[in-house]
């Protein structure tokens, strides 16, 4: 591998761990190995102190109280817990509402959690989005005419970076007596989130999407008024009974540090990344005149760029640029050959969706990385000989 290669521009799939995060984690990986639930002895209490510091740091990022944070193994688990947990608890309590509203461009884990609930007698409703990727509040309002238990709309889309107006959507949900959940895996640490101001009931966060470690995440669960959930994992009764299992103290310490850094540097990161995005778009736009930015008219996070190229398939572009890490959609489903369902929901035809690349610029992207990416993609796109389509990797499962 050459120095500085491959160039990593897939920061929506996962972000590299910040070295400062690693520095916080390392001591917990050596001297301090207690189980954070073994509060009877000093080593356990030291581990517990680390998890509680992390809880406060995660809470601070979204304006929550520490005790409103439930740690999970990641955003996928948090989304499952929020959606299934809220639905099942309401049903147990005799709540007659069965409707669960979500949106066509949500992450697979939200769509599948809602679909799983259909088998338990709930009524999932998947709303369309406008061509710019946002949910029309009038469409949500119409869906809320039927008594609704929960509305789940992501704060920022993982493929396009499009920001939903969660505060307005939450207000609509609340006016109809529904709970509001948002998958903030792509939003947390990138844009300001304020659970009080935006009146959010449930918020999912991921560690590895904000330069923390993989394997941890959190669900914010509002306390006033209290949101009640049925747990997915029972057992030792950790996390106030909402999520059993030993808390991974070293990973959580890293997650907390990542949240602290993101909160302090969000504005600075955003400014720099906006500049890099402009630089990439200017260079690519000059070389590829008919380039289309998907979700162009919506508000987007700075690091995210979803581009439809006029002539080449995305897979061919990726194959022609083996030293450039970009993607055609969500990492989880990036092995699937069909075009992105997110772009299809925004009205792109299958051919255009198939010519679309997701580019994710992050905290550690340099101007040189951007210049390399622009040059490599332009050359690949404008070369006369079409490149072979990348063969399906044998390591990837369906």
């Amino acid at each position, binding site marked *: 591998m050459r120095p500085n290669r*491959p160039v990593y521009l897939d920061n929506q799939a996962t972000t590299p761990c910040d070295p400062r995060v690693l520095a916080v984690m390392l001591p917990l990986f050596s001297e301090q190995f207690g*189980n954070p639930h073994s509060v009877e002895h000093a080593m356990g209490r030291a581990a517990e102190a680390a998890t509680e510091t992390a809880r406060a740091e995660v809470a601070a990022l979204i304006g929550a109280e520490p005790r409103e944070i439930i740690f999970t193994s990641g955003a996928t688990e948090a989304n499952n817990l929020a959606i299934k947990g809220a639905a099942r608890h309401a049903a147990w309590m005799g709540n007659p509402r069965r409707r669960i509203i979500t949106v066509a461009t949500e992450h697979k884990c939200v769509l599948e959690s809602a679909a799983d609930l259909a088998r338990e007698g709930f009524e999932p409703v998947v709303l369309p989005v406008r061509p710019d990727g946002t949910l029309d509040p009038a469409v949500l309002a119409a869906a809320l005419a039927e008594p609704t238990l929960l509305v789940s709309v992501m704060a920022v889309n993982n493929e396009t970076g499009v920001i939903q107006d969660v505060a307005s959507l939450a207000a609509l949900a609340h006016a109809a007596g529904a709970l509001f959940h948002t998958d903030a895996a792509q939003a947390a640490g990138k844009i300001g989130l304020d659970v009080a101001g935006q009146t959010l009931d449930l918020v999912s966060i991921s560690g590895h999407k904000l330069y923390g470690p993989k394997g941890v995440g959190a669900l914010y669960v509002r306390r006033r008024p209290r949101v009640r959930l049925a747990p997915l994992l029972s057992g030792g009764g950790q996390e106030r009974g909402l999520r059993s299992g030993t808390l991974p103290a070293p990973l959580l310490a890293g997650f907390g540090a990542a949240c602290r850094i993101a909160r302090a540097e969000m504005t600075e990161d955003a400014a720099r990344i906006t500049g890099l995005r402009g630089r990439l778009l200017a260079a690519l736009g000059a070389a590829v005149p008919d380039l289309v930015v998907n979700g162009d008219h919506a508000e987007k996070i700075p690091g995210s760029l979803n581009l439809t190229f006029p002539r080449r398939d995305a897979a061919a572009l990726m194959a022609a640029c083996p030293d450039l890490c970009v993607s055609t959609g969500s990492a989880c489903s990036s092995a699937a050959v069909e075009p992105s369902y997110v772009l299809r929901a925004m009205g792109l035809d299958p051919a255009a969706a198939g010519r679309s690349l997701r580019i994710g610029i992050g905290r550690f992207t340099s101007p040189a990385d951007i210049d390399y990416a622009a040059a490599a993609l332009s050359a690949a796109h404008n070369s006369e000989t079409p490149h072979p389509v990348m063969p399906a990797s044998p390591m990837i499962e369906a």
Partner: protein
Amino acid sequence: MTYLDANASEPLRPAARAAAVAAMAAAGNPASIHAAGRAARRILEDAREAIAARFGAAAAGVVFTSGATEADALAIAGLGAGRRLIVGATEHDAVRAAAAGAAVLPVDAEGIADLATLDRMLAEGGPALVCLMAANNETGTIMPVPEAAAICRRHGALLHVDAVQAAGRMPLDLAALGADSIALSSHKLGGPMGAGALLLAADRPLPPLIAGGGQERGRRGGTPALPAIAGFAAAARDAAPASAARLAPLRDAIEHAATCAGAMPLGAGAARLANTTCLALPGVRAETQVIALDLAGVAVSAGSACSSGRVARSHVLDAMGAGTLAGQAIRISLPWCADAADMRACIAAYAAMAERLSRRAA
């Protein structure tokens, strides 16, 4: 601090630490198809093969989870669907909570499951899932799993084994056990916290508890905890039952000295893990003993870590018929790195504690 609470969490093995830190440098998501993703994928699949090889499973049967609680829950929800549940009386809370409403298989005074009763319970009803741990977390008692597996097979029942405490401390091989699945925890064999696995004997589909994304062959959604999983595999390679046997003389010396100081070992008549002893000190509350030992610089526990702090009576010792001693027993569990100095520190602290507290209790 003398750390003798390995059954709550083993100290991280250096090989596991190195593997976890190295995996932290892998920037990619294992589901991505680009170079960074493929590098991450290689770490994940190498770990899967290492775990599979180490515990007698096929790589395709390994489902990585966030830990053993999730692995137990996944097994019980998946294998138990449409079956009645039978769980051992001394199972971990992760199993007991996931198997709400299950019939309870009693144990004898040493904590060993009553297999004649199991045979009768299975003969009496429809298809069942039986949950029986390989070794108990509070007493170290080793269960007769191969024998139970034979009984289950005869009745067409499935068997799930929580092998959290056994893994790395005694020979453990899914195929040899004859079980349908086993649950493992990384941090209980010296790997990082935040990873575990369910090993399936047959490469069967399993409805996911955590849906979305299609990872782990559709059986568990979510980006895997790569560094923790890499460390888990390294720890599993490193944790050899032969070296765990080294702990038996240290444990026996502690047990002997404690007995001389008035303690009554519980479950000591059974085959046990080499690192564990459960010591009742008549008349002295377990919590008081643990606090006294903590102040003396020795970390032990009064039961499983999850329920510690709550200081509930041990359901394990209750099931063994320990009576009032169930609230007066502590667990001493030696970590893989324990040495003679730890043993001596423990003996000195225990003797002093027992002398002071027993006198007060008398």
